[in-house]
């Protein structure tokens, strides 16, 4: 049925969604307050309408399921059979299915294939009716009754002779007292079977705009089940308008407001009374227009709140809890886009409330609370904001538990925790990666919840707060701006530039008149701070953050204005020159390429037509933290470079399923791959995988570190770090690749309990195990070495023992690697940390003491090139072989190295190649002696 224009289908869907919500609402009321004629009739009518219109549109599945519900409800409605809880449950399921179908149609234009579910549920629903019918009325035909036969009398449980199929117009019914409320909204299509309709026969599908019946009313969810009031003449009708049109209208009004501001300002400069009067008129009308335009986009928040009855009901059933949900202030109106934006966060909070907040029924009984937990969602307007409060009477948030958890999860340190207030600790539930549920359920507990709630609410300029009392309950406050487009803001100036700061983030304004020490601005480690009522308030100089000229001077003699802003519950003071005004500003987005400058959230046009930038509080503080972080790393780098001849290297962090995170120097990593465990095969005892035309042997890092073997059996993606040793690649199998991190190369090798570890490094307060990838590989290789090779190797090792090698490298890690490679091969090795030291050692040694020199190129004091020149210039150094081992290996670098006197130029760091080159130059074991300069000293 896709020939239908999309708007018509959209309208149909919207109407269905509204009807479905209404049905849920009525079902809940029935469950709560017991059987009610009006409600049953309303439900019946809604389902009937869904059925009718879905058939009209050719959505047969929706038609089918609603037909079954309609059939089942009919006898109930006519009091032929009582309404059983079982039927209510079935109707719930049926409606759930219907709403899934509707959602499916909305998403891809056709009904999702849920026929099996429908085939499952529809007969069950109809079964109710059939059972009732069979029991009561062994009559054939449709189980329908004419209303004429019914009276209000509750004794009417016996079936009057059925009047079989009926005409649309029942002449008697509307006049008769018994069913004043069975008045249906005009059915969208003619119904073949009996149906109570109004007297005036309605021509079938009529444009809804003229439809005086409120049932498909889009905006008013609180529609009474009392159906049409007599006074409803149609002049109060609603029309459906495309949202884009409303958006355009809003934008135009926004522009009009700006022009109005300009006119007003201009009129004040003129002394023309008439003009002034006119502009005042314009002012008033514009304000009203703005108000009305805003209202067109407003929707009662009830449209999303009522859904929560279903959400809590389902969830409570699943968890075996009893929950009583109360909604207050459903009529509170909110901008449509905001309604959409708060929907998901609200759902999450409500689910959290039921899942974590409320105790189990037994626990509640034990603490003397009523069995049914209470959740209240209250929404109201306060000070230009909409407040949505979600309150439960559950166990509350225990600050000590939260705190302990946060420390355990590494969200913060124990020290930091000790300094926090109870409220701050409770707010930790918004920290990323935090979840208090002891066990992970499919409902919540994955630790991705509350921080997402917070970010989503903040994205729309809102704010989340939590208040909780242990044992009494928790309440969450969502503070949301009334509308996205217009924001109250402070207008400030600094160094002649004007900016706007949204007022949501502003806590207070402080004017520091007296800048005498102790009272005014102080400097802590060069950073300005201010004592605000005894607490230190970190300050940001706006001009400095923005890089304005002459920014770095805070004039100590002048008064200073500080805007205290709250970012993530941290107060920061923004130093500005002047606070000019407060104004309602219309936020205009910035070009995409300006969004990278995170200190701005947009721009606005002032009354005088001038454009000003809106500052983003989050962005400003982020820039502050970033600066601090940068400073920290530079200090760090500075210190290590000068004093330790060490430097920051990059490491790849990964998880192998052991307690500590593991790490490997990035320079050893060739590639990162992910293989499906199914494609891994076994040769002998070795796992291998086809990789770029060769076989890649796989080694489990966990096993190498003494842990359990890797589980290759279950099908999954296996992350593999490909490391090259010599020409050959090897795959290190890990559980998860985490990150590439710059760390100090100062590896503490004293703490190691395994030969496959190089040692440990402290990073971010965590101990990181640095694995010795090359040793791990070597162990694997050694398994395959033949006896012959072993003998050969032993011979070579014996020969090497006669040679002394001098190595120099300023980076401890590489130095150790080179040392290890040569030392294990059998050479005697001396180490120096820079070229100067190495040369001193060399020049002091006897002629011929050293057989070879291995040197880094980049070193402090005397670099590798300098060392080579010095050695070649020395009387003992004319012919000693020299190898450069470096990261710099462009052909120009090699050229330079050769010129300075190096024989071989090797890239960092391939120990096998290094040893073989050393062997070759010294002349051990098959080494080609042709171009060896050195004549053996022995």
């Amino acid at each position, binding site marked *: 049925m896709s020939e239908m224009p999309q708007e018509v289908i959209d309208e149909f869907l919207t109407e269905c969604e509204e009807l479905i919500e209404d049905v849920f609402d009525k079902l809940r009321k029935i469950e709560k307050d017991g059987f009610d004629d009006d409600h049953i009739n309303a439900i019946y009518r809604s389902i009937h309408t869904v059925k009718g219109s879905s058939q009209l549109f050719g959505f047969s599945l929706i038609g089918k399921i609603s037909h079954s519900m309609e059939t089942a409800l009919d006898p109930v409605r006519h009091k032929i059979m009582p309404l059983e809880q079982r039927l209510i449950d079935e109707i719930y399921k049926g409606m759930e299915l219907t709403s899934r179908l509707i959602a499916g149609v909305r998403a891809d234009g056709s009904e999702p294939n849920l026929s099996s579910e429908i085939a499952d549920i529809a007969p069950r629903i109809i079964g109710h009716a059939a059972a009732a019918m069979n029991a009561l009325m062994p009559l054939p035909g449709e189980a329908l009754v004419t209303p004429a036969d019914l009276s209000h009398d509750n004794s009417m449980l016996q079936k009057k002779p059925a009047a079989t199929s009926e005409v649309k117009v029942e002449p008697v019914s509307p006049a008769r007292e018994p069913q004043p409320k069975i008045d249906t909204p005009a059915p969208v299509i003619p119904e073949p079977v009996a149906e109570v309709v109004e007297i005036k026969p309605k021509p079938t599908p009529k444009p809804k705009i003229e439809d005086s019946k409120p049932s498909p009313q889009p905006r008013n969810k609180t529609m009474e089940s009392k159906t049409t009031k007599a006074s409803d003449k149609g002049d109060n009708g609603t029309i459906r308008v495309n949202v884009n049109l409303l958006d355009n209208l809003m934008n135009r009004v*926004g522009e009009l407001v700006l022009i109005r501001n300009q006119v007003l300002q201009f009129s004040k400069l003129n002394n023309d009374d008439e003009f002034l009067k006119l502009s005042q008129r314009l002012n008033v009308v514009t304000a009203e227009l703005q108000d009305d335009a805003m209202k067109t986009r407003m929707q009662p928040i009830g449209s999303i709140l009522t859904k929560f009855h279903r959400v809590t009901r389902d969830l409570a059933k699943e968890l075996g809890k009893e929950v009583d949900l109360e909604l207050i202030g459903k009529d509170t109106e909110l901008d449509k886009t905001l309604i959409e934006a708060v929907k998901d966060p609200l759902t999450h909070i409500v689910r959290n409330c039921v899942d974590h907040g409320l105790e189990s029924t037994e626990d509640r009984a034990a603490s003397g609370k009523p069995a049914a937990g209470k959740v209240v969602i209250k929404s109201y307007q306060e000070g230009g904001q909409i407040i949505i409060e979600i309150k439960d009477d559950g166990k509350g948030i225990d600050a000590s538990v939260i705190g302990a958890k946060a420390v355990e999860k590494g969200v913060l340190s124990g020290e930091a925790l000790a300094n926090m207030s109870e409220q701050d600790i409770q707010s930790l539930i918004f920290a990323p990666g935090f979840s208090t549920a002891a066990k992970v359920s499919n409902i919540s507990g994955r630790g991705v919840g509350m921080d997402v709630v917070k970010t989503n609410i903040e994205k729309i300029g809102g704010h989340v707060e939590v208040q909780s009392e242990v044992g009494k309950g928790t309440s969450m406050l969502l503070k949301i701006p009334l509308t996205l487009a217009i924001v109250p803001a402070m207008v400030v100036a600094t160094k002649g530039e004007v900016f706007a700061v949204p007022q949501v983030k502003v806590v207070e304004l402080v004017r520091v008149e007296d800048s005498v020490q102790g009272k005014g601005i102080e400097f802590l480690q060069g950073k300005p701070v201010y004592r605000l009522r005894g607490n230190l308030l970190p300050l940001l100089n706006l001009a400095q953050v*923005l*890089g304005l000229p002459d920014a770095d001077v805070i004039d100590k003699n002048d008064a200073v204005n500080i805007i205290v802003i709250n970012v993530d519950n941290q107060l920061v003071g923004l130093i500005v020159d002047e606070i000019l005004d407060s104004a309602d500003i219309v936020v205009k987005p910035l*070009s995409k390429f300006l969004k990278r*400058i995170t200190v701005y959230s947009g*721009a606005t046009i002032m009354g005088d*037509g*001038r*454009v000003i*930038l809106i500052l983003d509080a989050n962005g400003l503080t982020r820039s502050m933290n970033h600066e601090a972080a940068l400073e920290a790393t530079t200090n760090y780098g500075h210190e290590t470079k000068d004093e330790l001849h060490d430097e920051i290297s990059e490491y790849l962090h990964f998880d192998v399923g052991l307690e500590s995170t593991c790490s490997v120097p990035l320079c050893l990593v060739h590639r990162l791959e992910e293989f499906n465990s199914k494609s891994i095969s076994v040769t002998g005892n070795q796992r291998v995988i086809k990789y770029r035309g060769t076989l890649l042997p796989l080694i489990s890092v966990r096993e190498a570190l003494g842990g359990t073997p890797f589980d290759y059996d279950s099908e999954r993606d296996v992350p593999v770090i490909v490391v090259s040793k010599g020409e050959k690649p090897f795959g290190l199998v890990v559980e998860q690749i985490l990150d590439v991190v710059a760390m100090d190369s100062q590896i503490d090798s004293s703490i190691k309990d395994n030969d496959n570890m190089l040692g440990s490094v402290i990073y971010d307060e965590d101990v990181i195990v640095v694995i010795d990838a090359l040793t791990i590989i070597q162990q694997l290789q050694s398994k395959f070495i033949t006896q012959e090779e072993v003998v050969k190797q032993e011979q070579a090792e014996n020969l090497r023992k006669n040679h002394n090698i001098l190595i120099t490298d300023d980076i401890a890690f590489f130095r150790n690697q080179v040392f290890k490679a040569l030392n294990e091969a059998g050479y005697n090795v001396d180490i120096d940390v820079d070229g100067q030291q190495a040369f001193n050692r060399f020049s002091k040694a006897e002629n011929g003491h050293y057989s070879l020199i291995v040197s880094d190129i980049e070193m402090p004091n005397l670099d590798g090139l300098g060392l080579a020149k010095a050695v070649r210039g020395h009387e003992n150094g004319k012919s000693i072989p020299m190898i450069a081992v470096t990261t710099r290996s462009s052909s120009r670098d090699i050229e330079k190295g050769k010129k300075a006197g190096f024989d071989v130029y090797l890239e960092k760091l391939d120990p096998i190649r290094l040893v073989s080159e050393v062997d070759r130059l010294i002349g051990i074991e098959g080494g080609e002696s042709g171009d060896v300069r050195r004549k053996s000293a022995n």
Partner: protein
Amino acid sequence: MATSAESQLTDAKGTPVGGDLQFSTMTVAGRQYGIDVTMVQEIVRPMPMTKIPLAPPYIYGLINLRGQVVTAIGLMELFGIPGKPPEGLMNVICKHEDNLISLLVEEIGDVVEVNSSSFEPTPNTISPDLKKFLSGIYKFNDSLLSIIDISAIMEVLDS
């Protein structure tokens, strides 16, 4: 300049060009450039400009175009042409995928019609910093017109 543009922009035979494409012409650092007229929304006189601290130097600032905030780009800086542009630059407001940007130029010339046959790709001798913003060259009898590629500009800005 604006008056002379017509006489300048004649085709190879010396007759005025009556082609299938139209370009707005403009001057940046004394040289002539063209932009496809369909990309140009309007030309606006020099406007008061709000500076954007921390933005790259070719971003001059924001202007208020009848209630819309438009970012102004200095072409001279963007093209990497050394020197200081004069005061009072004209705004060529261009629309690209619903985004408005203003390209700041010294002078506005006429709209010229050109024949697609007189097109040539930008020669390789032009510095790559400039060449990436040009979609090609149109030849006239006594002058050449470099065509500015708006989408290339947006791409560079966005990257």
